[in-house]
């Protein structure tokens, strides 16, 4: 552990930048490219030491760096297997600043929805039950295979997807699925200028999507929740008031209210606002408060009819990062110990 | 509108007029009644005094027989209605009883989950499902001028009937005003007709029957209307005995609800079973409803 080169050190050795992906879709990398020609500024400011998406980098090269040698690591993707966990630990050690980049690293995102199942169920589905699968021998991925040359390893697949900060210590968070390019550029600029907020900060706005949404808002009372295909919403009026479960009320601003702009309710990809511990719980609390019914029967009718998939609705992006993190595993399932 | 139909034993025999008129009226109103296949007797009141579990199982068998495509079972007889409804409720309230009854049903390969079938009395269906608008629209021959004494009896007004005031029912009264009749709001409309007392103690039974006939006559009713075969039987068949016992000269025809509804809908009198009653209704119906022209 030593004083490696920081963002603003001597000329000649440019600070090192790493971009890594764990369980993710690659959208975050695309969004980085979305900063357009400014990518040249990034190239001028940093030496890119790792980015599996666009360049051939070797883990060994990273391992051989001194601890803290990387100035900034933008880590996207959640942690779903042992290799990803190893890379998270490695990059943590080698980086001065580790940024949970994008929704997957930040709060689990879509991969995190797998936490409604466990490894066995996922394997059963992926390697057996899907229509296109033919697997009469019931072959499953093995973590170790012996070949004449020795033993080959595959990463161990976990029961539970974890966020980056459930795995290693994280310095900053950049929300969004993916983070919007202008926000990425702002963050990079802040890093280059050494103008960093306190550790643990989610870099972004501290209001919610409603702040950017131009729709007319009124007092809310919801008698019926509607699915998006059921109505053509009025383009002028708050979508929630029209019965669409728009997550914009609870979702951190930063996207510019892209979805509501095109008549589609916010699905919450920017995650919770500051001080919210559990995005889904907060959203549930807010939405339930304005249900227009006063007895359990009517309330339940409104809920069960309008919100058939509550986890997918309230925890679409945040299940792994939520307080409960996952669904209850069946008794006797292979956990712990 | 589609219902499973439970006629009950009486409607197959003494009260055939009720059965034919129910079917004719419902068809005319566009409601489909499909008779329950292989139904059995509801046990009336007798089974319950013998063995409650057996009685409930016998009744529950009918509920178990209702095909999945029906969620409602209609009974025109007040006693059948009460028994079916009561069984459903008792099974829902008492899991042990439910298990016992289902054990019994199991012997015949059946089972019943309480709450799956909604038991309805025919009056409720006419009043609520068909409703005022439709009945008024469909009325071809208003019952204007006919003074009707609706008689509810004691079975349909039990607390769980779910559609009418249990102390002083009014739904049939209202229904007949829609059809243009003059309804007699007489005080004994939910008093007992004597039921099976005619077989046990005639003096008691006849006194009960007398009170009903007397009150209806005091209020100048032309005709009494029933929704229960037992009531109709007692008031109609024993009327002459009551007359001789009490030195009276009651001459009050006693018809079923659907017979008069049928007439108002313009159905053929024969088709709704007019003429099957003992105290003939024809004279007063002719006098009040027709000016000479035959039906």
């Amino acid at each position, binding site marked *: 552990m030593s004083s490696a080169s920081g963002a603003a050190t001597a000329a000649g050795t440019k600070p090192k930048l790493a971009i890594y992906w764990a369980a993710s879709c690659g959208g975050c990398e695309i969004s980085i490219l979305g900063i357009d020609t400014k990518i040249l500024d990034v190239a001028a400011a940093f030496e890119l030491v790792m980015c599996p998406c666009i360049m051939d980098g070797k883990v060994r090269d990273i391992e051989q760096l001194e601890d803290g040698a990387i100035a900034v690591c933008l880590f996207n993707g959640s942690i779903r297997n042992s290799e990803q*966990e190893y890379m998270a630990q490695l990059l943590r050690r080698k980086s001065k600043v580790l940024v949970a980049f994008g929704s997957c690293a930040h709060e689990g995102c879509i991969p995190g929805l797998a936490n409604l199942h466990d490894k066995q169920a996922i394997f059963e589905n992926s390697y057996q039950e899907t229509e296109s699968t033919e697997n009469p021998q019931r072959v499953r991925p093995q973590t170790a295979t012996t070949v004449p040359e020795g033993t080959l*390893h595959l990463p*161990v697949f976990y029961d539970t997807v974890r966020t980056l900060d459930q795995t290693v210590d994280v310095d900053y968070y950049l929300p969004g699925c993916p983070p919007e390019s202008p926000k990425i550029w702002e963050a990079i600029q802040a890093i280059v200028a050494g103008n960093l907020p306190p550790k643990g900060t989610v870099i972004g706005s501290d209001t919610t999507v409603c702040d950017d949404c131009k729709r007319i808002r009124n007092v809310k009372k919801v008698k019926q929740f509607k699915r998006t295909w059921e109505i053509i919403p009025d383009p002028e009026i708050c979508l929630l008031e029209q019965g669409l479960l728009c997550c914009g009320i609870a979702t951190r601003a930063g996207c510019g209210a892209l979805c509501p702009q095109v008549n589609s309710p916010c699905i919450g990809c920017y995650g919770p606002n500051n001080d919210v511990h559990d995005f889904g719980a907060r959203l*549930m609390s807010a939405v339930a408060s304005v249900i227009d019914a006063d007895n359990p029967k009517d309330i339940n009718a409104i809920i069960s009819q309008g919100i058939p998939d509550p986890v997918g609705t309230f925890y679409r992006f945040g299940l792994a990062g939520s307080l409960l993190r*996952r669904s209850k595993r069946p008794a006797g399932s292979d956990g712990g110990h | 509108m589609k219902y499973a139909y439970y006629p009950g034993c009486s409607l197959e025999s003494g009260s055939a007029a009720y059965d034919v008129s129910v079917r004719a009226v419902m068809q005319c109103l566009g409601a489909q009644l499909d008779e329950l296949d292989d139904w059995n007797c509801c046990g009336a009141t007798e089974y319950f005094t013998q063995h409650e579990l057996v009685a409930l199982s016998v009744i529950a068998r009918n509920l178990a027989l209702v095909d999945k495509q029906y969620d409602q079972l209609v009974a025109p007889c007040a006693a059948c209605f009460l028994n079916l409804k009561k069984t459903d409720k008792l099974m829902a309230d008492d899991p042990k009883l439910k298990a016992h009854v289902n054990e019994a049903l199991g012997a015949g390969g059946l089972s019943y989950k309480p709450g799956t079938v909604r038991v309805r009395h025919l009056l409720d269906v006419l009043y609520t499902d068909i409703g005022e608008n439709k009945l008024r629209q469909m009325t071809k021959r208003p019952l204007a001028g006919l003074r009707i004494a609706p008689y509810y009896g004691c079975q349909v007004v039990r607390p769980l009937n779910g559609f009418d005031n249990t102390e002083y029912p009014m739904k049939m009264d209202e229904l007949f005003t829609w059809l243009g009749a003059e309804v007699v709001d007489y005080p004994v409309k939910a008093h007992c007709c004597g039921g099976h007392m005619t077989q046990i103690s005639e003096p008691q039974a006849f006194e009960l029957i007398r009170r009903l006939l007397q009150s209806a006559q005091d209020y100048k009713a032309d005709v009494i209307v029933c929704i229960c075969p037992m009531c109709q039987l007692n008031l109609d068949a024993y009327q002459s005995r009551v007359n001789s016992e009490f030195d009276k000269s009651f001459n009050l025809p006693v018809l079923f609800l659907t017979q008069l509804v049928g007439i108002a809908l313009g159905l053929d009198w024969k088709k709704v079973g007019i003429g099957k009653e003992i105290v003939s209704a024809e004279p007063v119906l002719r006098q009040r409803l027709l000016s000479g022209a035959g039906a």
Partner: protein
Amino acid sequence: MSQTNFEPKIVGFLCNWCSYRAADLAGIARITHAPNVRIVRVMCSGRVDPTFVLKALSLGADGVMIAGCHPGECHYVDQNYKAMRRYHLLKHTLHAMGVEPDRVRLVWASAAEGQQLAEAIDGLVADVKKLGPLGWSQNWEENGERLHALEEIINEHAEAMEVHA
């Protein structure tokens, strides 16, 4: 932990005006009840954020009770209706997450209903006892394969790491 001596840990969120006073009354009247519910006072059941419930469960509580004034008798006019709506939505979600419905319960108790509150506490404790411990954080644990696999990778890469670590 064996079922027989399992003593559930339950967090109870009680409103200041009715249910907390009902618990006070149960005390004054010496109505004994199970010691498993640990009470957190809030001003109104409407203050109970579903987050509190999830937090308690995730930290290791085996059950949660939310108690408020009877509907129509809320000290704050009708805020307990909001608690009711939130509770039902939360239950809907908890069901989807596999949490047994008997672990989280909404109870109404007026300030005069010490007996009823004590019974509700005993009822909830008995039901949670039947269900056994929840031990939520154990849900997150991976089996031994995980540590083994990490060791394998580290061993494999040890050579490289030693050079510069």
